[in-house]
């Protein structure tokens, strides 16, 4: 059976499938530094000119809704960047760019969309579907035991650097190979 049985009409797929570059800010703004991804999207929107070929979205805690569609869509971006907060044992506010191929394929990573969102799925998206996938991760400070809005100072201070990194790599017409 042919896989390309569905030829979508214009508008039948969302921007996040059709635009060449997709940047998703993930996290829960109610849990302190976990809101880093959402904060980066807000910062970029306020301080940068987002090119037309880029779909930039704060998906909060709802990233999986997009990723399912993205994985199975016949039309996909050529590059996807996931922005998230992670605990990698580094100094709070330190930034990392992670290639999903470098992450060990363990089932545990699929347990949560916040635990470096769905790394196995992102790896499959890259390896099977030919999409360049990267994760921009920020080391969090201690996460609050209870609901608490707002970033810690070290993580807030990382916002401009994260924006610079994203703009340099994704806000140009150059498409990485």
């Amino acid at each position: 059976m042919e896989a390309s049985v569905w030829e979508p009409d214009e508008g039948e797929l969302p921007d996040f499938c059709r635009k060449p570059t997709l940047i998703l800010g993930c996290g829960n703004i109610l849990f302190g530094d976990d809101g880093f991804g959402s904060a980066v999207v807000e910062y970029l929107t306020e301080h940068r000119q987002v090119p037309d070929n880029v779909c930039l979205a704060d998906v909060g805690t709802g990233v999986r809704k997009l990723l399912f569609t993205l994985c199975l869509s016949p039309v996909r971006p050529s590059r996807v960047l996931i922005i998230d907060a992670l605990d990698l044992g580094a100094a709070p506010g330190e930034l990392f760019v992670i290639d999903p191929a470098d992450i060990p394929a363990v089932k545990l990573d699929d347990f949560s969309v916040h635990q470096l969102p769905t790394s196995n799925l992102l790896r499959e998206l890259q390896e099977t579907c030919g999409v360049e996938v990267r994760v921009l991760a920020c080391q969090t400070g201690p996460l609050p035991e209870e609901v608490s809005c707002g970033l810690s100072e070290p993580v807030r201070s990382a916002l401009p650097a994260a924006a610079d990194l994203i703009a340099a790599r994704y806000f140009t017409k150059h498409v990485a190979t």
Partner: protein
Amino acid sequence: MAKTIVIQPVTRIEGHAKVTIQLNDAGNVDTARVNVIELRGFERFCIGRPVEDLPRITPRICGVCPWSHHLAAAKACDAVFGVEPPPAARKLRELCNSVAYMEEHILHFYFLAGADFLLGPEADYSVRNVIGILQAAPDVARRVVKVRHLCAKMLETLAGKPIHPQAAVPGGFSKPLAVAERDQLRAQAGEALELAKFTIAFAKENIFPKYLDVVKSLGVITTGFLGTVKKDGALNLYDGQLRLMAPDGSYEDFPYDRYTEFIAEHIEDWSYLKFPYAKKWGSFSMDPDKPGGIYRTNTLARLNVCDYIDTPLAQTELEAFRKAFGRPAQLTLLYHWARLIELLYNAENAIRLLDDPEITSPETRVKVTPRAARGVGCVEAPRGTLIHDYETDGEGMVTNVNLIVGTTHNNAPINMSVTQAAKSLIRGGKYDQGILNTVEMSIRAYDPCLSCATHGLDGKLGVKVTIVDSQGREVGVLAN
């Protein structure tokens, strides 16, 4: 030597669950417990805030069913303010609920549970995932994607945005529906109905018969059920009254705000998640041979408690379901079947609501005035009965909050089903990945929402099995 098998996924903040299976000296299952650590502090966080903020805050509890929290919160606010939303607002809210249901039920059947059924529980982990489904059934996968996207577009049309909704407000709905929008939505709902019809026919022909033996044996327990019905006993997912049905099929109906008269919460020292139970049925017990106060929520429960479904196609399916499995149906994996009947109902219900001229009325909101009051809002979330219970002071500031989410109701039944599944599958200390995934299937049937956690994006629970001896020493690790 007695062993303990621990199935333990690790998450960072949203939720944490592990399954501990205690083997006896013969290697058979003694007990099985699902230990859950949920979000903490959320209720406390809401205290001191203006109550009208809660419909905007609570959808961020997690990303799995934001619409359910949004609508339950809005209804609780209505009750706190003592107002009744205009008919159009009520219908718009119910329409949003039905569309969100379709999106969620499609997701669960095809992607989360679907991998088990389409690819088989024994399929290798590397292919038993979303991409595997695409490769196994590309036509179906893409049709599903198209309709899920349609549902997201419908919610965007109705509410301005599909994620973290804000459209329902105390006293109504912030955005009236234009006639042109209604016409567009009507066409989209028709397409969703076609997928719903296809899905249940597909499952009844290709999936359920193939797995009927598993359905009849895995995770089977006998419990009561809780769900929402209209006054005439019809299924409703947005509003009505609660019906608590005993295992023998007898039941009591009561309004939402009297839930504490019927439901108490038991605490176990090995889980942070409470265990709601029907307190009029006696003391709490998870002994599968003599359960006490145990009831279930979610799809199977709702179909059991309702007298009928007031849409024709879903009613036809309900009649066939009851003819095959009786009322109340107890087989745990029938949750999947019931989910598809609900999918059909929601598609039909969306069309019915859109065909109602009243839904385009510009009158969608009434004025509210702060007061000291208690208000209980309840909806049927895809994963079970969702209760928001608020109290406010004279300025409308929140002084007390209690939330019971759908999965919490099912805490005890999930534990019992896992125990039953483990006991039936693990004998003589022998187990493997296929067995562990089959145990997971008994949990997945409930479509639990331990925040986002229990659903891996590829449809599986994260599993790490640590085997320790009776002294707590690790003697082996088994992981996917």
